[in-house]
């Protein structure tokens, strides 16, 4: 995972990553949390400012509403002359500074002769008559809407040309007599003061704007918007349906605090970089919007975060330095120990181990090193002695092996001057000294004895037992010429002195070379195959006879056969039939039989005993396919000619 580098380096890297992540998480979380907090706080503050502003506007508008309603009531109750009406309106205007103008038109749907209108001119109150001149009163919104609805209403803001000659909104109270329109009393407010009021709000770089019921800008820092643009016309110009939806929400009396793309900026943002808080003005149906730049609001958070990042970064670097220093105090002694260990590994057991004081883990490691050095010296000394002993034993084993191999006849053909038979044998010992053996010799001029045996166990004991057995066989065969007797006497001789409870299997045959007759006995050995010329191999019959050396006084049955010319007898040990391959399967007697049959069927490739023995040996090796040879492999082939 990490490149191979020093512990100090890895420590710094891992701690750097870990602490760096924690630092980033802390600063990131801090930034987020304080941003959210500030956002929530800003939202609350701005909505509070908006609510206060709406309350101030509402105080003025509902004040106007009250005055107009009272005046209407008064005029409805008491019939006044035109002059008295005008004077009353003037008095109201003097008393209520928020009013820009007032008008009274009494007398039903038919226009009365005079409609007194009093408004604030540049030099004081001005009195006019709306019924005279070209003022189109009967189609003005402030007149028609309340007349038709028979309900008080605020007009859309308008420029009152020929009346007050100012941008104003008019509150109209209709007089109703017997469910019919009987006149109207109005009060105007100039919209100039609204712009002034919104300009004084504590909004920093933010600003406020006011929309009429139709979405027209009544107030906005961009003066060109006022009375000209509606929020919908802006949405149309910018091609922003979302602004149109927002505008609808606003003019329908909705309130909210939403991310916002400031439409009055020349450069449009790709993402909303502002917030818009909006609240309705209940009396007039207007909507107040307050726009704040996110950047301005979040500037303190950004500053705080950069300070946090700076401090954290400095602390981070300091910590890395300290970690590097501490790691060095650990790894430097380790490096010295490493040098010592290298020298020890190269065999210099006397190199001095540095004396590390301090009693920490590294110091105790150094102590262990010293101890290890001493232990190694002791161990090496012991090892040298053991190795010498082992080498002696091995050398002795090698010698024993050589002796074993020398015990069996090795020269083939052994009797080149005897033409009536041929014999070949091979013994491939396993890695250790094994217990297989074979032997053959003449009992007299015409009787030829040959044996194959297998001593139980392996190693020196087996070799010695084999040597003893072989010696016995040769000695006994001098006095007894029948194989059964040979085996019986051999058994007795072996059993007599068998302290170590070893035993041997043995097959013994005696052939009369003059007649081809052959007697044989078996002491628990694998049954040899008789290979008659031109016929399938046949196993010799099973004869009574047990392992040799286990128990005295056993009888061994004797079998007889008669060789024809070219007949062969194939003797082997279990090293052949029980040879194993990697998969743990045995070579098996059946396979041996099959291989022998194949060889018999072949032409003269296996014409002599050596080639047959070697072929079978080859099939065994092929079968084992490299698996280690577990037991001695012994094959003896006798051929009568």
């Amino acid at each position: 995972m990490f490149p191979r580098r020093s512990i100090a380096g890895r420590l710094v890297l891992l701690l750097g990553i870990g602490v760096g992540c924690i630092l980033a998480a802390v600063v990131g979380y801090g930034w987020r949390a304080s941003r959210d907090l500030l956002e929530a706080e800003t939202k609350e503050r701005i909505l509070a400012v908006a609510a206060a502003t709406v309350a101030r506007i509402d105080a003025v508008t509902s004040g106007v509403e009250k005055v107009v309603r009272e005046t209407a009531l008064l005029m409805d109750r008491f019939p006044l002359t035109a002059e008295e009406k005008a004077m009353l309106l003037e008095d109201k205007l003097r008393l209520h500074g928020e009013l820009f103008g007032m008008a009274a038109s009494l007398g039903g749907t038919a226009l009365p002769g005079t409609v007194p209108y009093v408004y604030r001119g540049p030099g004081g109150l001005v009195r006019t008559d709306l019924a005279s001149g070209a003022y189109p009163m009967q189609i003005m919104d402030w007149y028609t809407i309340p007349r038709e609805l028979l309900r008080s209403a605020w007009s859309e803001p308008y420029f009152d040309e020929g009346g007050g000659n100012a941008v104003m909104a008019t509150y109209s109270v209709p007089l109703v007599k017997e469910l019919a329109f009987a006149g109207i009393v109005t009060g105007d407010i100039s919209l100039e003061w609204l712009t002034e009021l919104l300009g004084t709000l504590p909004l920093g770089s933010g600003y406020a704007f006011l929309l009429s019921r139709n979405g027209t800008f009544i107030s906005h820092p961009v003066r060109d918007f006022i009375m000209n643009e509606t929020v919908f016309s802006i949405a149309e110009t910018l091609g922003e349906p979302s602004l149109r939806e927002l505008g609808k929400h606003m003019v329908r009396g909705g309130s909210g605090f939403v991310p916002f793309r400031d439409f009055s900026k020349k450069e449009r943002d790709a993402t909303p970089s502002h917030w818009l808080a909006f609240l309705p003005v209940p009396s007039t149906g207007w909507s107040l919007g307050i726009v704040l730049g996110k950047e301005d609001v979040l500037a303190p958070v950004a500053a705080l975060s950069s300070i946090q990042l700076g401090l954290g970064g400095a602390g981070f670097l300091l910590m890395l330095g300290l970690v590097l220093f501490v790691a060095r105090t650990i790894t430097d002694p380790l490096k010295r120990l490493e040098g010592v260990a290298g020298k020890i590994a190269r065999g210099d057991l006397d190199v001095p181990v540095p004396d590390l004081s301090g009693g920490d883990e590294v110091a105790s490691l150094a102590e262990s090193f010293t101890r290890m050095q001493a232990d190694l010296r002791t161990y090496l000394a012991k090892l040298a002695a053991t190795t010498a002993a082992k080498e002696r034993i091995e050398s002795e084993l090698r010698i024993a092996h050589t002796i074993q191999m020398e015990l069996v006849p090795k020269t083939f053909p052994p009797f080149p001057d005897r033409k009536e038979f041929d014999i070949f044998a091979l013994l491939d010992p396993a890695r250790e000294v094994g217990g297989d053996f074979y032997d053959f010799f003449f009992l007299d001029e015409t009787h030829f004895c040959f044996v194959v045996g297998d001593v139980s166990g392996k190693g020196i004991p087996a070799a010695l037992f084999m040597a003893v057995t072989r010696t016995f066989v040769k000695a006994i065969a001098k006095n007894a010429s029948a194989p059964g007797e040979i085996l019986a006497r051999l058994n007795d001789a072996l059993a007599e002195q068998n302290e170590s409870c070893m035993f041997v299997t043995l097959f013994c045959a005696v052939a009369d070379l003059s007649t081809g007759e052959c007697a044989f006995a078996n002491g628990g050995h694998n049954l040899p195959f008789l290979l008659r010329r031109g016929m399938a191999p046949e196993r010799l019959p099973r004869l009574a006879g047990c392992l040799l050396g286990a128990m005295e006084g056993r009888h061994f049955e004797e079998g007889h056969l008669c060789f024809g010319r070219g007949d062969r007898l194939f003797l082997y040990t279990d090293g052949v039939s029980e040879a194993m391959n990697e998969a743990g399967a045995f070579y098996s007697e059946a396979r041996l039989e099959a291989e022998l049959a194949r060889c018999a069927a072949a032409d003269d490739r296996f014409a002599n005993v050596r080639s047959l023995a070697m072929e079978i040996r080859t099939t065994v090796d092929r079968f084992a396919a490299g698996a280690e040879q577990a037991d001695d492999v012994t094959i003896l082939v006798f051929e009568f000619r």
Partner: protein
Amino acid sequence: MAAGRFFSGRAILLPFLLLSLSLLAGIFLSACEAGSQEPDPRAPGPDALSVRLLLQWNHQAQFAGIYMAFEKGFYLRRGLDVRILGGGPGKSVPEALRRGEAEFGTMFLTAALEALDKGTPLVHTAQIVNGSSLLLIGRANRGIRTPEDLRGLRVSLWGDAFHGAYLAFFRSLGVTVREVLQNWSVNLFLRGVVDACAAMDYNEYHMLLQAGMEPGDLSLFRLGDYGFGFPEDGLYCLASYREASPRVCRDLVEATLEGWRYAAAHPEEALDVVMRYVREAHVPTNRAHMAWMFRNILPDIVPSEGAEVPWRPGVLSREDFERTRDVLLQEKVIRRNIPYEEFTEGASPRVP
């Protein structure tokens, strides 16, 4: 300001001098340039004939071609020093013509017929708008799907020259409505006072959209679809003026039509000019609205490329005139059966 703190005493003098010199050089150069440039196409020469043209309404895109004819010098090239006078509520074109406050005026065909009938001796010189923009807009959410749905409901109409067309429209359908007079705003409709209002497709309809209404909220009835669409803006003057100065009339008409063709080919430039006129006259409107108006009125003045129209730009067809006149007669808006020749050629002594 900040720079001032770094320069003090003598050190500030050099850059100041350099700045002054470059400013002077700039003024000199621009003066030379102005001198070598062609004269302002709007600046009248000494021989130009002074003519006043009163628009029937506030400055807006409805008159874009007239502005372009002035701005591009099409009037002046014909020796006419035209002054364009903005109209509006309370300003009557026939009255201004009668009083000699303007030589020319624009008017709806119906308004001109009415004025002639009432005694203003005016004459038609050119038909600028050859189509009809009149609509009746109903509130779809109040179940207004056909004009018949308005039976007995409150409908706001203009009280002036468009009135007759609406009356005829309702009469033809046999529908009686409660009529409320409306002004130039759409507030009666927006406040829900009326269930339907009179409107023009290039103006009030878009004003409703710009007040947050959706096209789906509105049921549109185009008077033209019911046979009550009449040619609209035309150029008029007193018959006596035409008698005396026929060439001026012809030149004014030609220049005006050229102005419209120019506006059609350069819509953005025309809109820029419209917005300048609108802002100078403090007309409360916005560019998006003016663009809508321009787009919607233009095909009735200069046929769009490839469009087949049954009229020729600038010309009032006899058929359209007689159809309009007959409806006004039937509605008793006018009493006299004014002949086409009199309307277009003036009540000359040749007619007995």
